[in-house]
Each structure stands twice: as C-alpha cells, then as structure tokens.
C-alpha cells in the first residue's frame, strides 16, 4: 500500500521534472468558492561551462503568463461533491489561463484543501554506514521511520524530512557529507482522506491534464504569505477560505504542522442568509460590500437596504444597521478562530520561538479580522497578502490567491520529500532495471 503510494508520488515527481524541462506548468487551486489557475513559464536554466556563468539568481525563476479564476461549482468543504460541475469549473479556469498564455499546458499541480489533513511527527534513526553521510544513508533513515497506522482510507500526501540529527547534533537541514555515527530524522507526514483525493485526481484526468503533484492547501498558502523571517522563526498561517480554514505552522523554513478547520467564509454567508432572510447571492453581496467584524457607533447609524424577496417596494422593505450585520457575522468568525486556536494549542505552537500568526485566504479581507483574531488567538496577527510574483495580474494579488501563488512557489523551489530519496534496495525489488540504468547514467 505504502510502496504503491510512493510510486504514485514518484511518477508525479517525474512528470513535474518533465514539465519544468518543457518550461510550462499550470497550478490549479481548487477551492470551495473559486477555482484559480496560473500558467507559469520557467526560465530555461542555462547549462554553463564555467562557474561564473552558472545562473544562480535565475535558477527557478518563473513568470506567470496566464491567470484565470472562476466560481467553483460542485465543491463543498474543499471536496468534490458533483464531478461534472467541478470538471466544468476546472475546464473554464484552465481554458481561460491557456488563452491568456496562448500556450497549451499539459501538466498541472493541484492544491487540495479538504480531506481532513492530519499531521504526524515521525522519527527514525540508523547507523551511518561509511563515516560520512551519503545520499543512500538518508534514504535508509527515511525508510527506517516508524510510520504510524494512519488508517485504511487515508493517503500520505506529504512526507517532509524537517530535521536531521547527527550524533545528537540536531537542527541540520542537509547532513550529506558530514561525519557522524548515528543519523536521526524527524519526518513530517501529512495524510488526507483517500477518497476525496482520488476524486480530485479523477477530475484532473477527465480534463486531459497530467497531474504533476498534489499539495495540501495550507502548506501552499503558508509558502506564499509568510515572509522569510516568519518561516525561519516560527509562524502559523491561517488560510480562511470559502469552505475550509487551513492551518499550517512553519519553523526553520519547514512546515511542521498542517490542519484544517472545516468552516469558512461560506458559513458566514449562510449565517447571513438565514439570519437576515435573504437569498444566498444577496447574503454574499452583503458580506462583501458591508461586512465587518468590529462595530462602532457609526455602524449603528449606517442603514443597509436589504434586497426584497417579493420585489414589492411599498410593503416589503427592510433595513438593517451595519451593526446587525456585524452581529450576525462575528459569532461565526469567532467560532472559526476559536477552532483554530484549539488546533494551535493542540499542535504545541506556543513552544516556538516566535509566534506570529498570518491570516490569509479570501475571508481574511473582512474588515476588522485582525483585531478579532488577535483577541481570540491572543498573539500578534497580521493579514498577509501573497508575495509578489513576476507577471501576476493585479487582480490576482489579493489574499484569496495565496494558495495559487504558494503553489507556484512550491513548484519553483520544491521541498525534498521522502520519496525523492533513493529507497534502500530491499524495499524496491522490482526496480532493479531502473536502478541499473540510473547507475549507468550517473557514471557516464
């Protein structure tokens, strides 16, 4: 089971390499409220002869040449509920981005926000074979990790080696070449429910695209919205999306925790819809135009005309003050944030050296969220827009596009995962021919 999954991940990895060599790859953020697609063009890496011609700065440089987003359909809580509708949404986004880029994309990297991601910290330890740590030692130590029973219906989606320790010298990111006797690793394993993930893969396949990777959505938003210091010193990224709120914690540039609260902006909308007796579309409009979280005296006087259901202007007219609207929205946001706090507490976030919290995602645009968040989470919070990416249109620079931009960054600077390392021979008997070929390739 597990080996098979690694095969799938390896296949995706090789497809990503193909796409990078071709220079064009698409990233697709399948969210509950919108499907966003960015087409990235990579600067081809020049193979220079001398050291001085090595393009260090341009390595991994890319620009966005196509961007499109559309309202998503058939998706609830980040999971596909209606395959056809979801496929239509993906087709729309892909086609729009392709049209803007005027390029056909074949490979796509998808973010996955549903499926109840669960994090596991896993440790493994081995004796180093030949004094210095070699690539295969890392493979060995990763293979020696004691993988917990994460359940039958779940798949590992990330297995990130976040920390290496060599003879009780901890905090190494890359122990290769160092001298030591015992090598230990801390592996961050993220699993998601298998069925929703399979649905996403099926959906991509039905769009004639090749899947080059699946990234859990909070990880991508964290990559995009946390600045380097925050990633280094420790910060949490709270991606309040439409149907689910993702949570990822970073320290020393590694994601050490990912979780998901299955509530988001659409719940706020449905609260408004029910509380104020308006239609869903009107509720969404009210939320975006007049929504807020902190009521002031001015808001008592600011009256909002509710759209009438019957259309009878004489008898069916309602007005509410903005305070009322805030009163409807705030409890739900507070609930979400309290849930986030519970998850943060469970993850041991308070032991990190720095405890910044960055709010992003579409719902982070609600005015006053920062204040409420710092009130509830009790820490310094900020609303984080995704980092600037070359060629990104202005319309796609908001917080709602953090996941898409994060995916792009993940593609350009991929994190080594467990399956990027050579597994020891006893674990892959059927791959001898491949290994022989690889040996030839390396030695000639």
């Amino acid at each position: 089971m597990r080996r098979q999954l690694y095969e799938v991940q390896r296949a995706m990895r090789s497809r990503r390499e193909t796409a990078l060599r071709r220079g064009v790859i698409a990233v697709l953020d399948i969210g509950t409220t919108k499907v966003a697609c960015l087409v990235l063009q990579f600067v081809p890496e020049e193979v220079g002869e001398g050291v001085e011609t090595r393009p260090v700065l341009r390595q991994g440089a890319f620009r966005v040449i196509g961007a499109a987003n559309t309202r998503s359909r058939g998706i609830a809580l980040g999971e596909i509920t209606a395959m056809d509708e979801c496929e239509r949404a993906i087709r729309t986004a892909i086609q729009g981005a392709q049209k803007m880029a005027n390029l056909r994309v074949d490979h796509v990297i998808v973010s996955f926000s549903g499926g109840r991601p669960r994090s596991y910290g896993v440790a493994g330890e081995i004796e180093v074979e030949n004094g210095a740590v070699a690539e295969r030692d890392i493979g060995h130590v990763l293979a020696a990790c004691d993988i917990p029973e994460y359940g039958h219906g779940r798949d590992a989606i990330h297995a990130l080696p976040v920390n290496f320790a060599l003879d009780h010298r901890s905090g190494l990111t890359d122990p290769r070449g160092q001298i030591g006797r015992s090598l230990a690793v801390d592996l961050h394993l993220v699993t998601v429910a298998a069925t929703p993930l399979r649905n996403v893969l099926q959906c991509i396949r039905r769009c004639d695209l090749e899947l080059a990777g699946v990234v859990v959505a909070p990880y991508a938003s964290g990559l995009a919205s946390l600045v380097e210091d925050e990633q280094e010193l420790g910060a949490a990224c709270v991606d309040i999306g439409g149907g689910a709120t993702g949570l990822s914690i970073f320290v020393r540039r590694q994601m050490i925790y990912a979780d998901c609260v299955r509530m988001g902006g659409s719940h706020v909308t449905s609260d408004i819809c029910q509380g104020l007796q308006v239609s869903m579309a009107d509720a969404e409009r009210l939320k975006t135009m007049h929504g807020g979280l902190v009521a002031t005296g001015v808001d008592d006087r600011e009256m909002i005309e509710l759209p009438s259901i019957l259309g009878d202007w004489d008898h069916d007219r309602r007005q509410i003050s903005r305070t009322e609207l805030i009163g409807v929205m705030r409890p739900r946001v507070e609930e979400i944030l309290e849930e986030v706090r519970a998850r943060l507490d469970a993850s041991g976030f308070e032991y990190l050296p720095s405890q910044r919290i960055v709010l992003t995602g579409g719902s982070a645009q609600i005015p006053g969220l920062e204040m409420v968040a710092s009130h509830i989470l009790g820490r310094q919070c900020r609303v984080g827009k995704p980092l600037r990416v070359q060629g990104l249109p202005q319309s796609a620079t908001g917080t709602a596009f953090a996941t898409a931009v994060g995916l792009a960054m993940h593609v350009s600077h991929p994190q080594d995962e467990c399956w990027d390392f050579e597994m020891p021979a006893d674990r892959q008997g059927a791959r001898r021919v491949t290994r022989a070929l690889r040996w030839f390739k390396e030695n000639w």
Partner: protein
Amino acid sequence: MLPVKTPRRDPAPSRLRYRLTRLWLRPGFRRLANFGLPMLAGLLAAWTLMAEYDLRGRAMLAFERMREAIVEQPQFVITRIDIPDVSPDLAEQIRVAAFVDLPASSLEVDVVSVRARIEALDAVERARVRAPASGVLEIRAIERVPVVVWRSGPGLQLLDPAGVRVAEVDSRLRRPDLPLIAGEGAAGQVPEALELFALARPLHDRIRGLVRMGERRWDLVLDRDQVIRLPETGAAAALAHVMDLQAAEDLMDRDLTVVDMRDPRRPILRLGENAVAELVRVRAMVAGEDA
C-alpha cells in the same frame, strides 16, 4: 436520485470545445490547419479538375485554336527570304541552311536558331537575322574571304586570315590567285604566312608555296626545287635578308638548291650539282695557276 442542485449554470466550455481549444493551441496542429490543409485542398481540387480528360482536352484545344488564330494573321506571314550582299552561290547555301518553310509565321520562326544554323556554315563569318513586319525574313551575312589555299592531307581548303576554313576546293587551279601553304599546323599561322608572301613579292612568279615544317617553322619553296629554310623566330627578317641578296646579286637565279637561314648568323647555301662541279674545276684551275 435527485440531481445536484445548481443555482445557475455558469458558462463553461463543453468538453468538446475544451479539447478543440487545447488541440488548437498545439503549434504543429495550428500550422497544419493554417497551411497544410488549404494547400492540400487546393492541390486536390486542381488535380480532380485536371483529371477530367474532357475538360483538359477542351482547354488545350481552345488554347491551341487561339494561338493559331493569332499566328496566322497576315501581318505575321513571311513570304520571302532576303539575303543581300552575298554571292549567289552562298545565298543558296544560306537559304538551305536557314531551314524555313515559306510561307511561315514570323511568330513561329525562331530567329535565334536560324542565325545559329547560318553561322554554323563555314563560309559565313557573322549573320544577322531579322523579321521586320513587311513579310520578309532578312538575313544579312558577312562572308568569310579566303586568303590562302591550304593543302593538308587529302584535300585542299581555303582559309580566311584567322585560319578558319571557308570552303573546300577540288583543285589548286580553281583559285590560282591565292598563295598555297602546306603542312600540319599551317592553318594556325596564316597571318605570318601572308606576311612572308608579301615579303617574297619580288619572286612572285617563282613561288610555289610555303611549307610548315614540324609545326614550328616555314620553308619557302620556289620552282626548280629551290627551298629557302626560315627560322622559327624572326622568319620575316631572315626572308628580308634573302630578298636583299636576291635584289643585289640575283641569288635565287643561280644554281643552288637550298638557302638555309635557320641560323640567321650563319646562312648556308647548298649548290646544285653542276655548280659544284664547276666550283671544283675553277678551284683546280686556280690551284694550277698558283702551282
């Protein structure tokens, strides 16, 4: 099963449309559709059209008819070939060589090839062929003028100053007015031969001809089997020397067979048999008187 409730179907490309768009974004396919297919269609259309025998035949026939109608206009008909300023004999030759069937159309007569055929004649140096609109094909030919008769191998040929053959004659007596040259390679040295003949004008009635010896020098042959051997270079000067001697001392009227000027510093005479005997006798007489 209740259908999934969709508030409003958002516009989305159908699967076919999506696939077609993706296909269209393929550069190879786009090139094929933009250039390959129209070209193929055009070729196919032209081919099927031409494959209809009837149509093609009719087209060819119409074209042919149109062409004939133009060609047979009376303005273009040539009724006469005009060859001014050449001997009747050569004119006849040119007329045969021009190979034009009268009446012909001036559009169909290929004047360039006519000219080439005429210039291929030996006796014609240059030719100009014109077909002015008056129904006359005008051929202006410049005859080659023979200056020497060349006896080479089996026959006698007339040569012009450049050494080009003008005609062949069966007997020397047909052109007794022209000087005779003989020997291999003589044709290439006609100007020098003419110069030598001019120098030898005082012996005009006694000259039989110039013989090219070994393709490098001349022998001037007179009657009574007298020969003046000339050097390879400076032949004219040597002959002038001999002519001076002739003018001063009637050298060639004496009984000698060979004047050898091949080494200009040491001319050699070979006497006739009677002269040698006479010389011996005179020498003996002189010796007797002395004794």
